[in-house]
């Protein structure tokens, strides 16, 4: 719903990578994989 969407928009960038939480190898790979789907 819009509020959840808005919450996520504040917490995550468009590729699903968190603005605040440090990333690690698995997470970054997952984000990159997501980008692959996007492109």
């Amino acid at each position, binding site marked *: 719903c819009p509020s959840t969407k808005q919450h996520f928009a504040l917490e995550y960038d468009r590729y699903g*990578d*968190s*603005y*605040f*939480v*440090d*990333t*690690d*190898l698995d997470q*970054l*790979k997952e984000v990159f994989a997501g980008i692959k789907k996007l492109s």
Partner: protein
Amino acid sequence: MEKTVSRICLASEPSIVHFLQVSWEKTLGSGFVITLTDGHSAWTGTVCESEISQEAVDMAMEKEKYVEELRRALTAGAEAPGAYKFSFSEESAQLSCDKNLQDVSFRLGSFSLDKVPNPSEVIRELICYCLDTITEKQAKNEHLQKENERLLRDWNDVQGRFEKCVSAKEALETDLYERFILVLNEKKTKIRSLHRLLNEGQELEKNTNLDR
């Protein structure tokens, strides 16, 4: 000039191996010289193209096919035991060659030969030809062996480079991710601190408003 030497056994003397030397210029079908020897005597004869063509006509065979059959018969020798039957009569110095099929055999060719007055010369030439062929094949062997070794070295070399490349690719991926994570987390730290400042700022403003 092409030449072959093969072993044959004559129907009349199956226990004594004979040697058939056939030499020809461009193709067997353009005529050939055939020499028969038992290591002691020798007989030789020339078969010209017209005789070959005539023979093919008599056998109602296409000339190319006939020549191919002839070539196999005259050069296969012991490599095709039982496929052909050779008969030779010293009186008439007539060499004939029959092809054996399942239950029939048919005459493939018959050649008039002349006895060689000085057979040792022919025999020496035949042995020299064999020794030259051995030398030639040995040289080819050595060349192929060297080629083999070079190819094996090349293969090992590129296999090694390929394996290095695979591990370098894996290392690159790991290395890049590590760097990316460091840089990205730096930015996230920055975002968290700005966020904190912003929140503090907003808190302050709220309080200020309250004060006012």
